[in-house]
């Protein structure tokens, strides 16, 4: 009986592990869902995240190198609402020097990918993100209502690289560009053939301006979120994201992203360790399908947990 049920669970686990990262939120942004009934009054939580990723991918744009990151996330939970402000710093192991020739029009090196190829990730840097979420219960005939979260995300990153002369190596200018992203995501639930199916839809639009390669991409993705599994003190979960991303010369489904996460909570330090493998198979007009193996390891720890008592 046990072996019969565990095999499909393992398959689902593997499938799910291949799915979780189809959002504009970076791989190091930990889950922050709190059911509104878990707190009577407002709650403030501040969290620090530290870690690194190999083959770092920023919003479905590979950086092609490893990166280290720090994230400070501040969240307020009030009734059915959640507000977050997050600041992240990402640094790559080998920052790219932007060079320009003295020709007219100027030509920059490295040259940006063609417009039918997967765009380059923006240079690692600082990013600010604000999120507003609302939790809404969905009645289900078989039991308690399922609480679904719908969230709006706005993020902004300055892109101010120094440009040096290809001939002399002297700094010739500094670009003042930026990248802005706007996203909506919502949880989904339905019952299919006796099984609960959980997932989420995500839409995001990311726009660059003032850079040497201003591009815009729209993302529409669905992530299926199977139940996780505990093995001793370690929690495992998987997700699978399938989606379509514009601006890379490939129409239709061009993203398949399984995601596997192992989560271990260390009780003495109250820190949580995340180990994530997130291979992203993406298709562009110029390159066809290409898979990028992103692996991340990071630690998160709460800096402050403040529960405000409900008035009255």
């Amino acid at each position: 009986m046990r072996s019969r049920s565990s095999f499909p669970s393992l398959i689902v686990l593997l499938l799910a592990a291949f799915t979780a990262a189809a959002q504009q939120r970076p791989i190091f942004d930990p889950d922050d869902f709190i059911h509104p009934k878990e707190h009577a009054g407002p709650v403030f939580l501040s969290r620090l995240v530290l870690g690194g990723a190999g083959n770092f991918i920023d919003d479905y744009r590979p950086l092609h190198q490893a990166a280290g990151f720090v994230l400070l996330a501040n969240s307020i939970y009030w009734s059915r609402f959640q507000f977050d402000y997050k600041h992240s710093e990402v640094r790559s192991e080998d920052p790219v020097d932007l060079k320009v020739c003295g020709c007219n029009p100027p030509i920059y090196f490295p040259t940006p990918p063609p417009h039918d190829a997967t765009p380059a990730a923006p240079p690692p840097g600082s990013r600010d993100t604000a999120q507003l979420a609302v939790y809404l219960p969905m009645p289900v005939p078989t039991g308690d209502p399922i609480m679904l979260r719908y969230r709006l995300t706005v993020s902004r990153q300055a892109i101010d690289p120094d440009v040096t002369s290809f001939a002399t190596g002297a700094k010739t200018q500094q670009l003042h560009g930026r990248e802005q992203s706007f996203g909506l995501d919502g949880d989904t639930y339905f019952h299919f053939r006796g099984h609960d199916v959980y997932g989420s839809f995500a839409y995001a639009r990311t726009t660059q301006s003032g850079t040497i390669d201003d591009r815009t991409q729209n993302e529409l993705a669905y992530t299926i979120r199977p139940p996780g599994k505990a093995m001793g003190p370690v929690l495992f979960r998987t997700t699978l994201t399938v989606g379509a991303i514009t601006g890379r010369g490939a129409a239709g489904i061009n993203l398949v992203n399984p995601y596997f996460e192992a989560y271990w909570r260390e009780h003495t330090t109250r820190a949580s360790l995340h180990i994530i493998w997130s291979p992203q198979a993406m298709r562009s007009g110029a390159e066809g399908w290409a898979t990028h193996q992103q692996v991340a390891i990071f630690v998160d720890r709460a800096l402050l947990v403040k529960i405000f008592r409900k008035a009255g």
Partner: protein
Amino acid sequence: MHWKPLTSFAIALGLSQYCVSAAHAQSPTPPRGTPRQHLTVHDIRFTLGGDACKQPSSVWVVINDIDIQYEAKKDGVVWKADTLAQTFDAASAHASLRIDGRRTDCRPSVPNWDERIATFKFPQCPPKLVTTIEISTVPGMDVSYVRDFRRQPESVPCPERVAFSSAQPYPVTSLQFPEETLVLLLDRAKPAALGLRIHDLLNLYHGSANSNFPFITPDGIAYAVAVQRAKSMASTPNVSSNAIDLHLRQLHDAKFEKLELKVY
């Protein structure tokens, strides 16, 4: 020439008529002019299946979760009970049985309009091997538990909620794992869906019947609930560090030290 299609049609018609009449015989329709929605009754008849119930010494009926038990007597292949002056609506009622102290899941009533009785079917008798769990906490708190059966296609929800003080070991008797669920609410204000699933906790920490469980610290409880969230706890499955830290802070604020379970 066309006898085969005609014969098939006749057989199909006959079968359908048989099915309709059989359905009518099982659930008589109300007489003309009688409102169909309500049928106030006090007589109960039910059938009881399963090998574990061949010769029960006592069978009691509980109607609509109201904690009054009515004794049932066997009459041939059916069981009969009478709620006496306590009438109920046979069109919307549900019932569960207490068989030698063991509880069944809840089944919906099927009204018999001709005989003005409520009928029920209990296809499965509860197993004879049951579990008792004693619950206590340090310090003692005002807590509650909710027990219910895992939903079967024809059953209806009928959770049993009991509030108690956990200063002394409180026994929850005749539990039927894994068919039954037991959820502990250290904070009574929370809905049952967000409570600590004791039935899962036993598996998580390898507890079994007749074993004295080691006490469970706040970290152990927070982890057990995190496992529940990862599997889905009235929401999409998640692994939320924020939820874990909030839970630990709540336990700390309640000065919670440990949960003790004894399994018999």
